[in-house]
């Protein structure tokens, strides 16, 4: 187990370098002038452009720029925006908001998705089953911005149950609606995977054995059936957590949440290449670690899996 963990962590190094370079190169090759529109109506004065070019080494080759960037990164320095604001600051203020939203979304999708999946998997072809199948199809088919705007309009404007946008305090009660929107597609996937998994395992020999032992049905389903059926669901949840932590450009935009997704979006629009790269680097790292966590969780759930 320790050896496996070490190997997985070592594997992160080439993946990390590869992905960061790819992003760096991608941002570097985007056409356009980073100083366009920086100085109001007029073009920026040559002195300013020269200074900035010198400061950010914009005239150097990509190799030098990337090398410099990585060197600073390993010293904990994310660099700064053209305006002089440290990028580490931007991440530190906006990332907690994203994490909070991600957690709310994850809990909502896990609870609702699993409940729907288990109930329909046990009793297929009933009314509830058809209801869940149709509504999950809806959630999967509709783009997230449609779900987001429709729910925001219904709950926030039309019925006035919640405030249409999230305040800076990021209260949990305010995050329920955005969390539902953000987790809606995954919720539908989870419901369907859980349904199939439960229905499949329902006829497994070990479930029959558990019934033959005279265990109450509650226990047969809640312990024997559920534990086995959870394995694919947990995998899905784990991968999804990685994706949720990557920020949600659309959901954060709709509900005015100052999250990492909006910061990336703003940085891309304003050609703040250093900011884009830095944020994405953090997201890549989080995603890689989440993946590792899922693999470890997988082994904890299924004792037949052993990592050597």
């Amino acid at each position: 187990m320790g050896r496996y963990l070490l190997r997985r962590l070592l594997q992160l190094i080439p993946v990390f370098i590869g992905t960061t370079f790819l992003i760096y190169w991608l941002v570097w090759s985007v056409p356009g002038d980073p100083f366009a529109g920086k100085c109001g109506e007029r073009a920026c004065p040559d002195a300013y452009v020269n200074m900035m070019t010198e400061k950010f080494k914009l005239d150097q080759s990509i190799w030098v720029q990337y090398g410099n960037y990585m060197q600073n990164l390993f010293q904990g320095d994310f660099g700064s925006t053209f305006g002089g604001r440290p990028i580490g600051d931007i991440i530190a203020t906006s990332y907690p908001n994203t994490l909070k939203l991600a957690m709310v979304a994850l809990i909502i999708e896990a609870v609702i998705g699993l409940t729907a999946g288990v109930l329909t998997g046990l009793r297929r072809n009933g009314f509830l089953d058809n209801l869940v199948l149709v509504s999950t199809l809806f959630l999967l088919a509709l783009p997230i911005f449609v779900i987001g705007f429709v729910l925001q309009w219904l709950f926030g404007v039309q019925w006035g149950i919640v405030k249409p946008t999230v305040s800076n305090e990021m209260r949990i009660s305010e995050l329920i609606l955005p969390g539902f929107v953000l987790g809606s597609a995954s919720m539908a996937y989870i419901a369907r995977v859980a349904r199939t998994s439960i229905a499949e395992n329902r006829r497994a020999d070990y479930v029959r054995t558990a019934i033959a032992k005279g265990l109450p049905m509650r226990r047969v389903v809640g312990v024997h059936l559920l534990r086995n059926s959870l394995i694919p669901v947990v995998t899905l949840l784990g991968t999804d957590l990685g994706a949720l932590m990557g920020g949600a450009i659309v959901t954060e935009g709709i509900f005015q949440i100052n999250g990492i997704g909006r910061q990336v979006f703003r940085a891309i629009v304003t050609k703040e290449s250093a900011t884009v790269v830095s944020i994405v680097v953090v997201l890549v790292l989080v995603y890689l670690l989440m993946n590792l966590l899922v693999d470890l969780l997988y082994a904890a759930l299924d004792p037949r899996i052993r990592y050597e």
Partner: protein
Amino acid sequence: MSDILVSEQSAAGTSGRPSGRLLEVDDLRVEFRTRDGVAKVINGVTYHVDAGETLAVLGESGSGKSVTAQTIMGILDMPPGHVSGGQVRFHGKDILKMSAEERRRIRGEGIAMIFQDSLSALNPVFTVGFQIAEQFRVRRGMSRSDAKKRAIEMLDQVKIPNAKGRFSNYPHQFSGGMRQRAMIAMSLALDPEVLIADEPTTALDVTVQAQIMDLLGELQRERRMGLILITHDLGVVADVADRIAVMYAGRIVEEADVYDLYAKPAHPYTLGLLNSIPRLDEKGQELRTIKGLPPNLMNIPPGCPFNPRCPMAQPVCREKVPPLLQVGVGRASACHFAEELVNRD
């Protein structure tokens, strides 16, 4: 007519009144209702088992022996399964009429079951010890540590070496034979009065088979359990069974004492089965088989279901279903020519 008494009463008695027997299956009928039609899987099966007795139920795949057992246990998948008639009496009471909760209480404590494939029958994500101790905790309300102690005792009783250490192993860490022993320990945990063993040794290799059968026999004698041994292996049957019921197409075609059945089968199907056992003194010769295939259960031929494959078939066999009739002390056969078979030299 010969001197053998042929009565109209079937071997086990179908009158429906309590007879003081431990477990009785009486004229049980089960069908599978599928989209393609109705398959009549069990067509009037009657057998019984008393305390301390071993009944072997013998038959090919699809003869209905496992479905009968699943109906007794209440673990038949319904739908598509459907009990269309008959009774299963435990201590004289029809368990098919009991509530789900009453039936649940009988499982494990009154009637327990061992399955064929111990790898799939045990839950892969829980330790063997947990799966045994679970019954003490749930059914007996024992504390965690007491239940563990009892589970280790059970593992010890089925002769698993280092039972204490094995308690926390997962099923896949056991060998096939050890797993079946653990399965036996699990089924005997609540001290059942009847144990149904559904092909308990089929998935094991021959040397292990003998060990498992010995263990089962030993535990049965110790506890004076009724044992229903479902098998298609005539070799296994000969050693341990007191009585044998031979099934074909969802019916009992012959029921007899082990010695009588091997000495003089009273049904051509049993005769065919016995003749198809490979023999060392006939090495090099072609194996004798029963020609043809078992009938399609959605379309059982009229008359005796065995008639298309029977070497003795006469016109009457295609017209009349032979009832299971007594053909001697404690033996019965469902063949129009049972007397001829029993009386031949």
